């Protein structure tokens, strides 16, 4: 009799959406598995299923036709004794019901939980700053000072590991004679590796000692905006006395006149009298 009453309550709850009758708790989550009388959620919690658990479609409340597969979203209704009495299934995320914290006392695990020192909350640094990584979008401004030998007509780009090191992936805008800037929207938690280029990896930035430098790396933490200042000391295609040729050019290694496009017919320099 009691079981029938409970089932009726659960059915009513399903029909009315997520609102659970008094005494029952409803949470929404994503399933990993349902096996051996337990439901396993991606939160890492396992809950005991009532022997009389009802499995329904979340949208209609009708008996479920959605197979219980990993990734399935579910709204679980808990009886006061901690057993799940109803699982409402959906292929799409379900609106958040009550907090999982309310049902974590019902989570089962054979071994008692032992604290994990590696999961201790992060501590503020020496400046009192505590970096957090929630995935929120952060407007990040990259401001770079380029070598003074950079032509005023040059374009500067960023090549990143996220773009497969495409040397023209992110184009920067010139700020003045020595600075370029770009604003990117990155999610906090992003680890971005990047290098500045002038449009090809043959004209990528070099370390101050002229050698190839490892990619720059930045970890984006939670913030509203962030500005990163970088310095490029030199470009790979610039030697001490000029620029080295790039692919698909036929270079002239020696040009006796420093003017590449004098009028045709102009006499070459001569000793005169």
């Amino acid at each position, binding site marked *: 009799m009691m079981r029938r009453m409970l089932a009726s309550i659960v059915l009513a709850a399903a029909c009315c959406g997520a609102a659970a009758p008094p005494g029952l708790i409803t949470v929404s989550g994503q399933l990993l598995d349902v096996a051996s009388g337990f439901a396993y959620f991606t939160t890492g919690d396992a809950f005991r299923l009532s022997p009389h658990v009802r499995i329904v479609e979340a949208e209609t409340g009708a008996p479920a036709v959605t197979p219980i597969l990993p990734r399935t979203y579910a709204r679980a209704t808990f009886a006061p004794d901690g057993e799940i009495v109803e699982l409402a299934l959906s292929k799409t995320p379900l609106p958040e019901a009550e907090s999982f914290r309310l049902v974590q006392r019902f989570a*089962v695990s054979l071994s008692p939980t032992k604290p994990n020192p590696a999961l201790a909350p992060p501590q503020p640094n020496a400046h009192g700053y505590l970096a957090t990584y929630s995935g929120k979008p952060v407007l990040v401004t990259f401001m770079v000072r380029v070598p003074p030998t950079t032509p005023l007509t040059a374009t500067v780009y960023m090549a990143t590991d996220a773009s497969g090191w495409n040397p023209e*992936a992110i184009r920067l805008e010139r700020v003045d004679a020595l600075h370029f800037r770009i604003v990117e929207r990155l999610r906090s938690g992003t680890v971005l590796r990047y290098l500045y280029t002038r449009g090809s990896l043959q004209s990528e930035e070099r370390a101050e000692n002229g050698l190839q430098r490892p990619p720059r790396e930045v970890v984006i933490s939670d913030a509203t905006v962030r500005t990163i200042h970088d310095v490029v000391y030199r470009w790979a295609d610039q030697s001490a006395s000029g620029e080295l040729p790039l692919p698909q050019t036929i270079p002239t290694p020696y040009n006796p006149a420093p003017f590449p*496009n004098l009028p045709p017919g102009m006499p070459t320099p001569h000793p005169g009298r």
Partner: protein
Amino acid sequence: MPTIPAETMRRPALSFALALALATPVLHPLAAIADQAPVNPGVQTLRLEAARVRFYNDRWLLEADGDVHISFGALRIRGEAFSMDLKQDRFVVAGSVRLATPAGTYRGAAFSDFLDFRRCYLFAILAPGDEPDHWTFVDGDFAHPQKGLQMPGDAFALPNLAGASPDVTAHSAVVGTTAFVRFAHPLVRIAGMDVPLPSYYVSFSADPDLAQNSLAGANFDGTLNLTGDAHAISAVHLRYDTQNKGYLAVEQHLASKNAFAVFSINPLTRPSKFWNLVTGWQPSPRFSIRTFSQVHTFQYGLRQPLESSQFTAVQLTQALRQSFLQVNLQQVNYTMLAPSPTGYYGDPTHAFVPNHPSSVELGVTTFQHQIGRLPSYESLHYGAGFTHDVFGLQTYGGVTYSTIWNHYAGLTLFTSSLPLGDRHDPLKTYFFNATFAKQRQWFSVPHYIDTTDAVASLSRRFSNALTAYVAYEVNNTGDYYLQGGYGSYVPIVDGTPIYGFAAFHGVATLRTLSLGAAYQPNGEFSASLLLRKHDDFPQPYPGLFPPPPLNVLGESFTTNYLGQPPYDITGEVRARIAPRLSVDIQRTYFFNFGTLRWSPQFVIQVIPQ
């Protein structure tokens, strides 16, 4: 009566019996392998097979569902679903998980491996009816699970893929952790269509050497990485540029810890082909070698070339304490074909050019040093070298020089971002920058070349999105002969003598006033405008100076050339058109300089991000 509908449960009686059978080794794991070696943090190979394997390029997610089989080192894992965040270097297997390790076989609801942290987590299922357990495996020690150890909150997190469509679908994939993923016989989403391919490779390596490329720019480049691994990529490029139009190019990348090589043929399907080889090797932290070799052929298909030239550049760099030493060697063969009795091949546009000059230069560049306590910096460079061509490089005074020695010295000074105005309000602060570079190069032919470049700019940020600057540059090049030099010359253009040019005796001064503004409201859109006024000597005149060579994008190779139109304005817009794709459109207007108004064409680039 149980109310679980039979069709909703995946585990019928047979599976249940199988689970019971499997429970025995779970409860009594095989003999443990003591002191298991820690997981290698380098590239490891993970082989994945499933009913459906999907790759989401914009999120670096590899997902699989249905009868998932994974082979990962000594582990064999089965499950119903698989999710791997390639960038975070971790994966989750969920649903009826069977984990076979050298230490034993375990069952669970889910298993995850956080590779960078050398931690594996198992949501263990023991005997039917028993409560599940949380096991953590540390450093690859599967014999001694740490039971009940608190796990990260996202140890078994699966991504929300609602509304996302995969870029690649297949039945199997090979992952080189931290480096690449390769699919066999996938369907790859190209221009909205699923195109079957024999193989497809995606690199997400943090090592830029594997991405070194030897291709020139293009308006559009669709890269198809056909296959590869942690040290190699074989790619086909579908490209478009304004000179060659649509064409194919091929590229082979190779990389190891301190070296790389990349070879390409670009375009492959046009007669004017460039065969490029770029290599780099850094045998020590203070020394590197880079080479660039290029063969240009003009040939239809792979038939006898009508042109064939070769260029090789070698650069050796040795880091010093406060400077670096660089040796640059270049060698060119303008024609590698046997001499033709007619002086050309096919038609006169493919002429025989016997010259094969070479040059060697040794130079030292010092680091940027602050000048006292001033906000200014200096850097010096100096060096020497020679150029040689047996057919002669220059004739002067009746003497043909086949070898010309030179030495040079230069100085660069700059001051960076001096704040002016209201320094407390960043939107009312002006920043002043100035650079000055001077070089003199002496030659064994009795002349020297002085180049001087001075730039000053003033910039201001008007809002977080809008910045503007004004810059003035004076570029002076003087070619001074100890005797004589450039004589007066009056060129004639369309019957009109240009008398003003007669004042040119080897000294040119290019003055450029620039006003630039950039608007960047967010990371998805940017627009910029650049107005320039040139006041040059010798003065430009339409048709007087040959136009500078343009690259395949329609841009000038050289930045400072004679004959720039007095006024130009360039507008550019870049917008993100897909999560990882941007389009860049640029065009210049020249304000009625002769017949020149608009630049030859829009420069349009579609750029993967």
